[in-house]
Structures are given as C-alpha cells and as structure tokens.
C-alpha cells in the first residue's frame, strides 16, 4: 500500500499553483487534505505523475462573510467548518451535515475544496451545496469563473472542472429568517460515507412553505437535487401528510446506485424515512 513514484511540487502562491497545474495538465493532481487522494494512490487506483501541494498557499483557507454570501476558501478544513460560528449562523445545513463527516483525524486534514473536487456521490457536502444553491469559484492560469453547485457535479467522481482548473472558493447564500435546515443520514458506521443522506432547506412564511430545497447523498450522482419533490412542498403547511407525501415522492425521484452496503431498493427506503425526518426537523427549526 505504497504509491508509485510521483513528482512533488509545493507552490507558495496561488499563481504558482495555477502555473504548475497548467504545466502538468492531466498528469498533475492538486493535493489539499489528501484524505481521498492519498489512500487512492496507496492502493494504486490513481497514479498522478505530479502532486501539486497547495497547503502552503496563503489565503485559501478563509471563512468569511462577503455581502450576502458566506465565502469558504477551498483549503478550509472540515474541522474548521464544523467548529465555525459563521457556518453555524449562516449555513446551518452545512453545520448539521458536518456532524456526519468523517472522523476527527480526517476532518483535521480534509478540506471542503478537496471534497467537492473529488465528488464522491456518497459525500454530504455536494448535496449540501446543491441544496443551498452555492456557487463554486474556480480558476486556471488563464481565467476564473463560477459554476453553480448543481452544475458542478457531473457524475460520480466527475466535475465540471476543466484541465488546468482548480477550486478556489465556495460561496453560499446566507441563511434567511424563516428558513429551517436539517440533515439526516444513514451510514453503517458514524463517519462513514453515507448509504443515503438527505439535506433539507425550507422557508416558512405565514404558515406555508415558500421555498424548499432537498439535496441527497449516496445516489448515482453527487449533489443531486430533488426538484419535483421540492415543488410539491411549496404552498403546503408542511404538515404530517404533506411531509409523508413528499417523502414518498422523494423515494421515487432519487436515482440510487447500488453500493456494497446498500442496494437501490434499500436506498429508496432510506431516502423516504430520512426525508420525512429531515423535513419535519427543518420545519420545526424554521418556526
């Protein structure tokens, strides 16, 4: 379980990192927290020729509020986000979901930017960012652009990142009054990748649901939203009947993959149960 030989580059600034990325193209990989990349290298599942270590790049780990958005640097560690008062206040769905992410040593090293660039379908954060309508800021040596989270994830372990591009920041709209958030998940062990996870954001005004967003993890594609189910919820009082109906709809709407620990049928059952729980919790928090 040792990686094959590779070259190691440690840029001291973002332009240097982007230069290295441009130079090495598809053979280069960004090393952030390394919590997925390094094990995959040790198992020789991936064999990058060059590792570009961005851990010394200054300014990439910030967590701050900028206008109406929470801005998270790509190098912000899971542990920092889990413990961040800003995250708790402005993106409670992320704070709630982080309770399920990895174990202490993993969270100490792993980064949000690395997590979404890896785009594991069982990971929580793609679903959270999709539900929050976050945008992903990416840069290459030549240009920078932003990609909506829902469009960033293109498939299992696949993103919209082009060759030479890296994630630099994540922007999440600040939580608004009347909004409630909840994350529910089922994993064989706490901290493992989800068999199924459901994140819910609802906005309640005048006793009615005015906005609903549901992101699911553990399905075929990371960062999946359940837009049909969301539409059903808008206008309801989020009462038990509405939630039960939505949970059943969610069960039908998801496109689960079969994994080693859970087949598609079981995942649908999990989604129904978890969606009902998450919706009820989010509703209660919205009040």
């Amino acid at each position, binding site marked *: 379980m040792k990686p094959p030989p590779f070259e190691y580059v440690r840029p001291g600034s973002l332009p240097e990192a982007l230069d290295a990325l441009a130079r090495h193209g598809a053979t280069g990989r960004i090393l952030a927290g390394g919590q997925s990349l390094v094990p995959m290298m040790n198992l*020789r599942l991936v064999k990058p020729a060059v590792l570009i270590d961005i851990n010394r790049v200054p300014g990439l780990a910030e967590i701050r509020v900028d206008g109406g958005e929470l801005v998270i640097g790509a190098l912000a560690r899971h542990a920092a986000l889990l413990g961040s008062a800003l995250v708790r206040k402005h993106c409670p769905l992320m704070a709630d979901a982080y309770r399920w992410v990895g174990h202490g040593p993993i969270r100490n090293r792993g980064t949000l930017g690395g997590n979404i660039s890896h785009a594991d379908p069982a990971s929580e954060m793609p679903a959270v960012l999709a539900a929050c309508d976050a945008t992903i800021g990416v840069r290459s040596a030549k240009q920078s652009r932003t990609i909506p989270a829902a469009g960033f994830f293109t498939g299992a372990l696949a993103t919209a990142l082009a060759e030479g591009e890296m994630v630099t920041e994540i922007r999440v709209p600040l939580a608004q009054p009347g909004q409630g958030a909840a994350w529910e998940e089922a994993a064989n062990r706490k901290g493992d990748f989800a068999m199924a996870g459901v994140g819910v954001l609802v906005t309640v005004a005048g006793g009615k649901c005015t906005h609903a967003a549901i992101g699911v993890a553990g399905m075929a594609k990371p960062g999946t939203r359940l837009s049909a189910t969301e539409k059903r919820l808008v206008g309801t009082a989020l009462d038990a009947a509405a939630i039960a109906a939505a949970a059943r709809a969610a069960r039908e709407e998801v496109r689960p993959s079969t994994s080693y620990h859970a087949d598609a049928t079981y995942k649908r059952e999990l989604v129904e149960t978890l969606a009902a729980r998450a919706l009820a919790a989010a509703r209660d928090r919205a009040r």
Partner: protein
Amino acid sequence: MTATFPKHIPPEGYIPPSRQQEPPREGYKYIGQNMKRVEDPRLLTGNGQYVGDIVLPKMAHAAVLRSDRAHARIKRIDTAKAKALAGVYLVLTGAEAKTMTGPTAQFASPPVVQYCLAVERVRHVGEAVAAVVAESRYVAEDACELIEVEYEDLPVVVDPEAAMTSTGDAVLHPERGPNNIAQQRTFRFGPVDEDFAKADVVVKRTLRWGRSGAQPLETVGCVAAYEPGSGKFTMYTNSSFLNYVGWLVGASLGVPASKLNLIPCMTGGSFGSKLFTHKAMTLAGTLARAAGRPVKYLEDRIDSITSCDNHGSDRLYRCELACKRDGTMLSLRFQVIDDYGAYFQFGVGTHGNSLCQIVGPYRINSVQMELVAVLTNKCQQGAYRGFGSEVTNWMLERMADAAADELALDPVELRRKNLIQPDQFPYVIPSGNIYDSGNYPAVLEEALRIADLPQWKKLRAEARAQGRCVGIGVATCQERSVFSATEFWSLNGTENPGFTLTSSPESTQLRIDPTGTIHVTLGSPCWGNSPETMATQIVAEQFQVDPSQVNVVYADTQSGFNSTGPGGSRFTVMIAGAIVGAAKRVKDKLLRVAGHMMETDVADLELRDGKIGVKGVPGKEKPLGEVALFAHYFRLNLPEGDDFRERARRELRVRPPAHDDAGGRPQPSRDLLPDHGQHVPRGAGRGRPEDRQDVHPRLRCGPRRGHGREPDDARRAHPRRDGAGHRHRALREVPLRRERPARDRDVRRLPDPDARRDAAGDPRRARRDALAVHRVRHQGRRRRRPDGRARSAHASGRGRALVLRRALRRAAAHAAQGARARARGRAAIGVR
C-alpha cells in the same frame, strides 16, 4: 457407548492435592489496587519498539505480490522486469523459495501442505505469489507491479456445503485425496439415542455463523537477519506464540532451534491475530538468507486482511435439541460444517476447544457432534478471539431460545431450569471436561436484578407501540479460562493422532541485582495487555517494595524458558503463579542473608517498605539494596553451606493450572480477566478502579466483535472469481468505538462458591478443596493414559468402538490437562 461419568461426578481419587502457594487473604497493598500501567509511558510517547520500529544495518524491505484469483494454476511467472528495476535486490517466486525453505508450520495431522509463497497453484485471493526485496518498501511494491503472472483459472469453491461434494479441478489439494473434506468424524458422548428416545420435543434449527477476524492496529511483521558464517537467524517478531512456533519456523527454514533466535517486540493488538505469524517469519527468514541482508517484512492492511492467520470460525450447524415438555434439556445432537479456507493451520483445534464447554452452563446429559471440516478458496482460518468456543456458546443460546419458542416457555425460565446447580460441582460434562465450581443461578439472578428486566419489557412495549423493532436477548454462557495446546490436535483421527497431551507451561525468571532492583523476565511476550503491570504488582506485593523498584522484561527464545504464550487469556492466569513461585524462593534466600547480616533468626524477619526488618521492632531493619549488595559481592562473609551458596536466582516452570497458585483472592488472575467476571449491562461506574482501567475496555470489545460479525458476513467474506473478494474484504467495516452496541455494562464478582464446601468453616481448607479440583487434570491424565497403551492401540486401529472410546478418553484427558473450566459463568442481557 455411555459416558465414563454417568452422573457427572468425578471418580474417587481423581483429585490430586493442591499446589497452592499462599492462602487467600485480604488487605493487599499493590495487588488489586489501581495503578498506572507500567507499559504506558513508552507506548504513549511513541517509543513502544514495535517490529516496524526495528532498523538493522543494511536492512532491506520486502513486499509481496498477492493473487487476485481465488483458485488458479500458476502457468508462468516472469520476474525479469521486476529484477531490472533500480533498487531491487531480490525477486523470489514460490517455486524458487521452495528450493530453499520447506512447508510452513502447522498443527494439522495429516498436514495440508502450505508454503510461504504459493507453489504451482493459488488457492485464495490474497495468497502470496512472489516476493520482492528492495531498498525501500516503495520500490519493492513498484517491482511487484512489474511481475507478470499467467494464471489458468480453476473452479472456485466458496460454499462450505458445496465443498463437501467437490471433484476434479475444484479439489484444492488433490494430493490429499479426491475431495475437499479435510476431516469428517462423529463424536458421541453419553447415551444420545436413549436421551432422544425420552424426549417430548426435538427442537431443530439450521444456524449459520459467518467468518470474521481481528483487525489489529499493528499488522503482523518480522525483521529477519541471517549470518552466513554461523548459519544463524535472528528475528524480531510480534508473534505471541514465539516459544511454540519458533522451532517450527526453524524447521521450515531447515535450521535447528539453536540457529534461530526470536526476539519479541511490543504488540499492537492481537485477539488471536498475533498468535502464529509464522508466514511472516518464514518468509522474512527465507528472503534475508537469499538476499544476503536483513529484511523487514511488515504486512500492510491488504496483506493482513486477505492473507492473515486470524479468520475465525465459519460454520453451518444443523442442530437437534432433545427436550422434555417442561423445558428440561436432555441431549444435543448436531452436524457442524466448518469452512476452514484453503489451508488447515490448527486442524480442527477450534472444535477441540468447543468440546471443553460443549454444554455451556446446562445439564445436557449427552452430546453428539458430527464434524465436517472443509477446504474452500478462502483465506485459511487461524486463531481469533474465542477460538471456536464462542460459536458453540452462540449455537447453544440460539437453541435455548428456539426451545423456549417451541415450548412456549419464558427464555429466562428455561435457562434457569437447566443450569448446573451449585451443589453439583465439580461437574463432569459429557465430553469429559470438569467444571470445578460455580454458582450459575446466582449469576443469572444478579444479572436479572441489575438489568431490571421488567423496566426493559415496559420500554420494549412502548417502542413496539411506536412501530419500532426492539427486542430483549438473554444469554447465559459458560467460559472456561486458559487453553492447552492439546486442543489443536485432540480431535485428530486415530490414524494420525499427531501429538499426545501437552502441559502447555509458562515460566518466569526473577533475580535481584546489587542495587536491590528486582528483575523479572517473562517467558511470554506482550500481546497488548498489561503483563508488566501485573508482574510489577505481584512482585511489589511479595517483596513489599515500591513498584518503581521492579523491572520487567521479555525473554527471547534462546534465553527464555518453556512457555506457551499469552493466547487464550493465559498470561495473568498462568504467569502469576510462576512469579509467585520464583519470588518466594528468592525471598527465602534474601531473608537468610539478612538474618545472617542482622544476626537475627529468619523467622523473626519480615519485608516492609523496601526493607528487611525485625518483626515488632521498628527501626531495626536493613534496606533491601544493602542485603542484595552484600549477597552479590561480600559472600565470603557468609558461612559455608547450601543456604548461601545457591545463587539468588530462580526459575519456576508452572504447568496448568497455575492460576490459583498465585496466592488467594482477590488476585490479579481473577480480578483482571474479564472471563472471570459476569457481564451485566446497566449500572456503569460500579466496580473497582482496576475494572474501569483494565477489564472494562476488554468487555467493551466483546459485544463489539459480536456486532462486527452481525451483518451477513458469510456473504461478504466470499472471494469471487473475478477477484472482487479482495476489494470487498477491504470494504468491510470494522466496528469502531462509536458502534458499540451496549453502553451500560457491569462486572460482578460473586462470592466464590467453593467456600460453601468447607464443612469445618476453614476458608483455607475450602480453597484447597476447590483447587484440588483443578489438579485433576495432571494426575488424572497420567492415570488414564498409562505407559503408551493408548498410542499402540491407535496404531493397531481396532474398530469403531475403540475409536469412540479413544475420542472420549482423549477429550476427557484434554479437559483434564489444562482445559480447566473456571465455571463461574456469565449471564448477559442485551437490549438493542
């Protein structure tokens, strides 16, 4: 045939006298007291000196290419590219290794031939195919990728039942015969047919126990060095069985034990996974000799998971329990198919172990076991926590619940009705083992009291009303303490009996240096528990010195004494007695020297606060160091005579049962070992301080390992033809601390039931009586197997009846010789 002891009472004269060294007493200063672990400072500061920490001059690193096929012929191996890689010193295939090193060690008889690198055929995913020695592990693994292997796939056998009828190319070891049955025998103990004829109900169940295994933080490894001048191997190893396996590894390498020294390293977790570790030692030795430089081979996690020595039992039971309508259990009859994987390391030793407690805590009058050991394309079974008897406990409890179901009886009531009663000890179970003492009903009642079952039943009703699936389980288990290696071969066929009975000894050496420091050398290595703390406590107690004055080290195989190893909870149980014995001899000598120095009668002297003083005269004393210095360097001042000529150095070899030689209760052997406690949920925080420190962590582990095999392990452990098993095994989720199923547990020690037998009210005598029961094993065995007659009968093979009688006798003798049943029982109630 009928049981030898139809009424479960041992015959007259079966109980030899006690070897107890000290009577029971209270008021220990160090034993049983909470104390920081002696081992911890170096472990917690990263200075534990594990195998991975060993670095020798010119040392190279080995990696192993493993099979991605479950069953295939090796048609061709091309190592040219690997050999050409810079930094590679040696590439060795199985065929090449076979010319240097013989088959690996094992206890099966007849053996199933296995090499440290597969020869001609691979039989499971993960089997070692070739090895590389290189300047670093990285280069070695790079070279492994460059080795080209051409396989010809063979039919894969993964289902144990299907393995019983395998033919042709599906037979793993054609040289052994035309099928995959490694051993098939029926053992019958007591009047099974008669008991079944008396039954009102026969409860039948098919039960499947999937395989699981240990996942130690530290994997198995070895650093081997070979000196061509002397032809001598030195190996650093984390084997906990090095005294038992060392000379066998020597035999594989073709050298006598005098040319092989195994140096034990600290062990990072075991539960059986460090017991044998012979493949790592044999491979590292082979590579070191061939490469001409020291070699470190340390399994990585994939090596460990796919080709370890610690996959546990993998059994299919077809059970019949004969009961009366009132729930009385009469007889147990079962077929067990056990999937041993591709090789047969311990033979059916796990069933030898099971038979020692085959009826659990119940009065089941007779037992019949048909054992079918099959070979399949999986990693071989080895030693894993419980060594097979835990599966028997599970089977018994499933059958008890099934009987309660069918008879519409309360599961607790059914158990209560069948427990061996306190006045029935010593109790001979049908397979011949003796339960020395116990009070099972009291354990059960205490468990029920603490668990507050009515409260749980109420909670269950409420939860079910909410649609939740909640159940309450009750188990009453009997767990003997320590094993004797005899169980590895006690069930071998009469045509291939293997070895006779072993005494499975343990030993220790104790000496005092001129400064008064007491040095204890343990014959068994550490395997992750607290042996140094245990030894320190006992020695500090014996000499009344501060624990800092005690130094505990581990012997290597060439300086150590006879020893079996810490497996099967043997460490404290066995070595405590050896330490006490050695300490008493050295203490006697010390007092004699002090008596001379102080011109005082030895009888008037006592050890107190690190000094030797005159009883009742405060201040009249000499520090232990002063007496030791005198004894070492000023011996000319001592009178001539044997009293003083003897060196202040003693060793004592203790054979089982040594447990009770440690000197009374409470003693560490009993206090520190979970198997002597009673596991009861609820009421956490009770118990003694050392429980929280030492016992509770181990108790937590028990339920968790049960939890770990709870999902359908059998399905998941199966390697598939496409090699997916390899990765799937890696995907299996090891239950971690957070997955522990029960939060509340309690350990209770109930009063030793032996005291009850003392009519004269003398607790010392009572203890002796109880101890005498343990003694049974040695002398009873000798009487039962006089002058090799049994062996000659084996050779002549005189018919079935004789075979059965022999089996019974062997099992009885087996039980007798160290499979002592610490029959205090366990009751557990778990709510999920």
